[in-house]
């Protein structure tokens, strides 16, 4: 449980060592670069925007190439690929890649080029297909579509927007141009269009054209020089050519499948370089030296200093960060509480004066989660599933490892509460034994069944809530203690303990409350009176001190009264823990409904098959929904009720200069 102590680090070294030093620091991943120095005549920053832009461009190209390769030659991935984590390679291999990177980049460009070729061919094929479609009605025409006629005749090749036979056509033309002898041939006809070849004497051409126009005659938009059938053959050949090109390109692309790993490493390699150039751009450099400033966790500082000085002859200066510095936050916790760091981070990291609440939070997190899910079988499924994954995939990414560990511990807690409350897939044991073995076996609760005694469960849930809230107040106590604000401890913590604690004890001595809550005990009246006095002192204290920053006495009193009004906040905070009951019941009751639905088929083989189907589908859904519910509401109880008592956050996450790759990680020499 701790926020790691940070130190300011300044590294002074020769410029000729820049590359090895930076790469070494990058692999260590322990320093956050923070450029606090100003430029002057000697020390200046280098402009790296050109290099950076080039690298970014190459990253985009290699990513695209990888995508193309995966499209044409999909990679075989196991179902659990996400658990496997990045492949580890030794540092020598990573360094050796530098010489190869240009070749691989060429491959990437080639892949992109070929993919573009394929796209171009596809576009061309589309165009050819349109042309062929337009040509289809003309296939029976055995002369050029551009035929104008002979010495003494004029030919018309074109279409009408209606369905005609040759006879119809001649009839229509005879009506409009009675004196013109016409030869009409129908090439093809459909309801919307008739393609025709018409011939008349040269002298009559004008008259006929007039008549044809009235009928809606239109010449083809792209007439062919050769007869349509021949033209069609040419188009066909061209299309096959394009398809050939596509096939070849695809073959070439799949041929690069063996280079997939190189491409992946190229992406990583360039990403590392890009990060390095970012840092180079922020360094202060003179002609022969450079200065690097930043933050480093104290625990890593000694070793790093030693190695930098030993290996590279650099000079390292360490100092405690100044009061006004914006120091980044890095948490360190044990295996048990570390998993919930992610939850804390999704709220906010601890601010300057705050302590790391992870370890206290972890205990409550697991307990509350377990109470909400509270089914032994669901808990066992979580424990076994997460446990197996953790055992089998040792190389898992840290964040994935943390989440699985969190659900592992939540699963243990869920199993525990499940047995206490007697829920194993709801009432599955009783239902199965009753339906299929005609002898009911009941898996009784080790403690009590919430559905039978909801009031008891409610009181227990609220009790857990009070403990959780008081723990939050205790955290505030600790925080103020560290800051040596002893008066504030009295005003903001002790008075509230007195008021809320006193009120609770007082209620426990009142007959009315004990009757409502169905408690089996009652505190003696003297205890009640004493508690009332304590609560009263607390209340008065709060009224007097809540407005302590105001000088005006009237304002101070009003603020004090408003402070006391916060007691309603405590009331709603405590009642909020009733969700422990509601969500716990929801899991159990829905599981019961599923079992009941499954057993409707009765005993026998058919009944058993139906039961198994309903059981598997139903419980999978129920587990999924309630996992989500438990996760969300545990978070809420932590964020709103618990953190509300002492924690604001606002810390900035420690973001060291390191290797943030996607596919590979580099194993450091020991």
């Amino acid at each position, binding site marked *: 449980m701790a926020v790691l102590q940070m130190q300011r680090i300044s590294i002074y070294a020769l410029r000729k060592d820049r590359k090895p030093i930076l790469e070494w620091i990058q692999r260590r991943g322990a320093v956050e670069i923070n450029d606090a120095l100003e430029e002057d005549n000697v020390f200046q920053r280098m402009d790296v925007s050109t290099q950076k832009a080039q690298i970014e461009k190459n990253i985009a190209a290699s990513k695209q190439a990888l995508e193309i390769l995966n499209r044409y030659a999909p990679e075989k991935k196991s179902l659990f690929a996400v658990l496997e984590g990045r492949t580890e390679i030794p540092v020598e291999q990573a360094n050796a890649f530098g010489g190869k990177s240009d070749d691989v980049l060429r491959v990437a460009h080639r892949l992109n080029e070929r993919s573009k070729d394929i796209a171009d061919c596809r576009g061309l094929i589309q165009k050819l297909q349109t042309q062929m479609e337009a040509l289809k009605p003309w296939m029976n025409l055995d002369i050029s579509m551009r035929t104008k006629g002979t010495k003494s005749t004029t030919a018309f090749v074109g279409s009408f927007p209606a369905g005609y036979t040759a006879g119809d056509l001649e009839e229509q033309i005879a009506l409009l141009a009675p004196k013109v002898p016409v030869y009409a041939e129908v090439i093809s006809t459909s309801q919307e269009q008739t393609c025709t070849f018409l011939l008349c004497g040269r002298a009559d051409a004008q008259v006929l054209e007039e008549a044809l126009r009235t009928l809606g005659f239109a010449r083809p938009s792209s007439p062919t020089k050769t007869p349509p059938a021949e033209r069609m053959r040419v188009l066909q050949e061209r299309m096959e050519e394009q398809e050939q090109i596509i096939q070849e390109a695809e073959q070439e692309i799949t041929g690069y499948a063996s280079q997939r790993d190189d491409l992946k490493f190229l992406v990583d390699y360039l990403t590392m370089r890009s990060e390095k150039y970012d840092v180079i751009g922020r360094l202060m450099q003179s002609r022969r030296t450079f200065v690097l400033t930043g933050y480093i966790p104290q625990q890593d500082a000694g070793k790093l200093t030693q190695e930098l000085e030993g290996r590279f002859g650099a000079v390292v200066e360490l100092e405690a960060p100044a009061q006004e510095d914006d120091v980044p936050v890095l948490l360190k916790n044990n295996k048990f509480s570390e998993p919930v760091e992610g939850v804390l981070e*999704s709220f906010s990291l601890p601010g300057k004066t705050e302590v790391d609440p992870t370890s206290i939070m972890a205990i409550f997190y697991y307990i509350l989660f377990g109470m909400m899910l509270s089914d032994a079988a669901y808990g066992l499924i979580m424990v076994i599933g997460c446990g197996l994954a953790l055992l089998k995939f040792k190389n898992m990414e840290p964040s994935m490892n943390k989440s699985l560990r969190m659900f592992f511990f939540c699963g243990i807690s869920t199993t525990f509460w499940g047995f206490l409350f007697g829920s194993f897939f709801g009432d599955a044991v009783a239902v199965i034994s009753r339906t299929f073995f005609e002898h009911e076996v009941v898996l009784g609760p080790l403690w009590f069944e919430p*559905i039978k005694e909801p009031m008891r469960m409610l009181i227990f849930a609220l009790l857990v809530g009070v403990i959780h809230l008081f723990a939050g107040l205790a955290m505030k106590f600790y925080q103020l203690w560290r800051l040596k604000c002893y008066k504030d401890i009295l005003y903001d913590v002790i008075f509230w303990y007195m008021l809320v604690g006193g009120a609770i004890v007082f209620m426990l001595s009142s007959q009315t409350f004990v009757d409502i809550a169905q408690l089996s005990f009652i505190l003696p009246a003297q205890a009640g009176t004493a508690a009332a006095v304590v609560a009263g002192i607390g209340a008065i204290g709060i009224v007097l001190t809540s407005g302590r920053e105001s000088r005006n006495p009237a304002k101070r009193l009003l603020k004090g009264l408003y402070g006391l009004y916060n007691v309603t906040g405590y009331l709603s905070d405590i009642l909020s823990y*009733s*969700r422990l009951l509601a969500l716990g019941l*929801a899991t159990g*009751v829905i599981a*019961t409904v599923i079992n009941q639905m499954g057993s409707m088929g009765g005993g026998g083989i058919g009944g058993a098959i139906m039961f198994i189907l309903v059981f598997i589908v139903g419980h999978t859904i129920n587990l999924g929904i309630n996992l989500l519910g438990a996760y969300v509401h545990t*978070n809420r109880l932590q964020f*709103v009720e618990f953190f509300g008592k002492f924690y604001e956050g606002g810390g900035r996450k420690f973001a060291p200069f390191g290797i943030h790759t996607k596919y590979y990680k580099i194993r450091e020499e020991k």
Partner: protein
Amino acid sequence: MDNIGVVLALLGAVLAALLAGAGSAVGVGRAGEAAAGVVTEDPSKFGKVLILQLLPGTQGIYGLLIAFITLSQIGILGGDSNISLAKGILYFLACMPMAIIGYWSALKQSRASIACIGLIAKRPDQLGKAIIFPAMVETYAILALLVSILAVTGIAGLPV
């Protein structure tokens, strides 16, 4: 007309499942539309927006829960279904918090969910906070659930 008690009780149970379920269906549906929009832009956000989409879905489950407890209490799922008129009315009333608040809170929660799906679209790292806003609305559904559970389970022992 002798059995009007059980009719009223069943009406209450059915309304709890029906209204809360309708609210959740509409709520999850709306949130799903917003979520689909985000996923078209960035498929990697699927997991995050799915959680937000599902949040308004719990009211339907709570409604089912109340309906089921009521059904088993009034003997519809086997047992004695002879309920007095007074008890019938009591069961009906006991189901109302879950029915009404379930419906409204699911609708309002879906609006918070949609807003937070928008938040995730712009700032995917803020999932923890984005979940809390809709979860705030759910508190009231949970309180209604609690009142309904306590009331429904308590009625059987009353001397009416």
